[in-house]
């Protein structure tokens, strides 16, 4: 298997264990995202892969060559690994212009071919006019593109992207994400990207590895992760949820928003039912909610009181109030703005409701 293979990697900074037995495989042409909250060890993993951090435990292969082995001190230095790394702060060389930055890593042996590639990349990334400009005169987006082209210019065996879009303003991100994805996919290189933004990960990745506290929690396609999260952490990481606590009885759990299937859990298990705001379907109290295309609407519906309703443009935010005082946040398409105190009929799309046992109960 060529590509990037990180096997059973553990790493600690002093007493602080940042990675515990993490394994990652990225195939050539594949883009894998490491997604996790800050401080979960994902950037350390990238630096280990690049050789910027000495490996303590585990093994790293790049294109079937062992480049680092934690059991002995044999580690290939970063300059011999053929790993392109794009830094969060771009790390452009301030004393070199755009062209010199990009051609910095090009080996004189195959320079003609790569210089031709650089010219092409400069054109396709809209940087032609800036070849002689210095980094500090460029906008954030331009710097990002220069950094990306620079990392790809030496024709690396693997590409590592460390929070590639975090330095950019939100308005420009969407466009730059598209451009980046196109260039990376064109290069056909095995790419490992680190981000803390689930939306970004879902947009970019063929596969997402969710990390938490130095471990991989779940590995799957973006759709898998969003629709079948492995645990409450993954579910909550991909967006806000409403939580309802309940006890499993006869393979089912009753909540204030309906009865849910709990086939996987034994009777008496205390569980949390997590429902995304966009998983609710609302209707006037005397009607049944209407399913959206692809929905699996729950069989039970309940009638609840509206607390507040606010328009959000394409959708509406409707907060419902339970008799216990708990507020349920829902998000429904279009304009649906019942007055406070009104009664609405509430259904749930079961695809967006997840049942997890509460960890520390027997």
């Amino acid at each position, binding site marked *: 298997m060529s590509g990037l293979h990180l096997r059973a990697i553990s790493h600690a900074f002093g007493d602080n264990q940042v990675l515990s037995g993490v394994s990652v495989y990225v195939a050539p042409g594949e883009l894998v995202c490491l997604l996790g909250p800050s401080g979960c060890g994902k950037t350390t993993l990238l630096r280990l892969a690049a*050789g910027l951090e000495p490996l303590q435990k585990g093994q790293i292969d790049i294109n079937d060559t062992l*480049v680092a082995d934690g059991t002995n001190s044999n580690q290939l230095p*970063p*300059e011999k690994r053929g790993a*392109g*790394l794009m830094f969060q702060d771009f790390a*452009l060389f301030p*004393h070199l212009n755009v062209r010199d930055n990009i051609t*910095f890593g090009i080996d004189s042996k195959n320079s003609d071919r790569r210089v031709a590639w650089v010219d092409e990349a400069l054109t396709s990334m809209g940087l032609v006019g800036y070849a002689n400009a210095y980094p500090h005169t460029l906008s954030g987006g331009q710097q990002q593109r220069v950094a990306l082209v620079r990392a790809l210019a030496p024709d690396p065996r693997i590409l590592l992207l460390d929070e590639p879009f975090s330095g950019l303003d939100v308005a420009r991100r969407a466009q730059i994400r598209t451009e980046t994805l196109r260039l990376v996919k064109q290069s056909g290189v095995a790419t490992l990207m680190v981000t803390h933004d689930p939306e970004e990960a879902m947009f970019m990745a063929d596969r997402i590895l969710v990390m938490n506290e130095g471990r991989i929690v779940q590995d799957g396609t973006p759709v898998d992760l969003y629709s079948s999260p492995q645990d409450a952490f993954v579910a909550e990481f991909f967006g806000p949820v409403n939580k309802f606590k309940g006890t499993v009885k006869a393979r089912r759990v009753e909540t204030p928003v309906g009865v849910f299937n709990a086939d996987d859990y034994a009777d008496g298990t205390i569980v949390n039912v997590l429902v995304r705001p966009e998983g609710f379907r609302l209707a006037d109290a005397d009607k049944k909610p209407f399913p959206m295309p692809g929905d699996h609407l729950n069989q039970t519906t309940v009638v609840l009181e509206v607390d507040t309703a606010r328009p959000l443009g394409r959708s509406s935010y409707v907060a419902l109030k339970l008799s216990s005082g708990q507020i349920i946040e829902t998000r429904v398409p279009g304009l649906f703005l019942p007055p406070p105190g009104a009664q609405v009929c509430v259904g749930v799309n079961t695809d967006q409701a997840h049942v997890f046992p509460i960890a520390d109960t027997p």
Partner: protein
Amino acid sequence: MSDAKKTLPRIRLNLWSVGALIIALAVAAPLFTVVGIAITDSSDIWTHLYNTVLGLYLERTIILMLGVGIGTLVIGTGTAWLVTMCRFPGSRIFEWALLLPLAVPAYVLAFVVTDQLEYAGTVQSVLRDMFGWTRPQDYWFPEIRSMGGAITVMTLVLYPYVYLLARSAFLEQSVCVLEVSRTLGKTAWGSFFRVAIPLARPAIVVGVTLVLMEVINDFGTVDYFAVQTFTAGIFDVWLNMNSVGGAAQLSSVLLLVVLVLIVTERMARRGRKFHHTSNKYSELPSYQLRGSRAALSFVACATPVLLGFVLPASVLSHYALSFYEETLSADYFSYVANSLTLSASAAFIAVVIGLFLAYAVRLSQGPWVMIAARTASIGYAVPGAILAVGVLWPTGALDQSISWVGNNFGIAIGSVMIGTIVPVIYGYLVRFLALAYGTSEASLGKITPNMDGAARTLGSNPSQALKRVHFPLMRGSLMTAAILVFVDCMKELPLTIILRPFNFDTLATFVYQYASDELLEESALGALTIVGAGIIPVILLSVTITRSRPGNR
């Protein structure tokens, strides 16, 4: 697939860490040598020294350190506060002019002051003419060649260290802290003593320790003024009593003093990391002074500049103009060439080694390289006299082993080291490496580690990364480092006197010898050249300090 794995190259010995350790050893060698000689010396001179001169040396050294320490503390801190916080006629000019005395070596000022104040000097002649005195017995005049004179002279040329550090500490202080103090009912003076000084204290302590290191390093002034300090004593025991062992033993005692100074300085530097609670660096409030207060401030700032710089510069210029022919005929140009050769070589090598060390520390993971670099930069605190003792022995030993190897191969090799400029440059390097290392380290610290990562992942090995990324970015700072070392080497006296080859004179040794023989006029051009070179770092420093504060115009 595990079968298909290629084997890895064996890990190589890291050039950088090994190099750093060798440099540290080379720098530390003179110090070990001194202590080694002191311990192994079998002559009974120690008992003799202990019973006769040790107490005197200690007493003189302590009085001198106390006097200069207090003097520089008061003048340095006071003037720094005045020019930073108050506005009065000339205050803008004093900001940089107060640094000028730094350009004047203490021994040069000592010669000039003596020349002016002694019996045949300008001041006493004028007094005699005015009052009709004819003999020394007719009036009382302070003896300039005394402890008091040494304290005055050294204070006048060394206070800029304290001024410099105190001023940057005051500039760093957030205006808010001072304003809060005012709103809480403290007067301007109250704020100074209750808020500004405590916040700046670590910086001031660093400044004073640097001054004290210079004080114990001084040889020219104390020798000329016949103040029997430790350094003068080392020279006396070594050259006049002809006892290297005794000199080494005295040096070892002095090294303890040095150690205390180093520890004090390091602790104070660590203490400098006060957290300024506000980062609002708006313009500092400046109290507009008028009338007598403005006049008083003006005099307070003008006096040190006049005595420490304008006086020696003008006297020397006057002499240089009248006697330049004598100076030129006294082989002035060969002294200049010698000084330039020594200082430029030392500056170049120091910067190369300093950069090497700083980069090795950056590359290293463990603590060893850091410890090595720290060791390599303690030389700045060690008096030249001690280094001279320590350098001469290892170079002599090296000489002997080289000729031994040569003899074994049937080649007669004479002295390769002794009698050349190698020992002088070695001594300069040990003493001034810290300057080059510190500057490189600071400059390297401003380059984000991601630059290294980028260069490495783009295929550069550490040396290539240094050449292609760090060096171009550091060029300006390295130039500054070279200039600082260069100028310090130009001024250096005690090391040069001992370690120079026979009949080899630099500007500093030439000035010292002529001026000690009451021939100041003839050597004035030489002294003036040293002062002129010394002004370059003063300009560099004053530019840096005005740039250092965000929000400063």
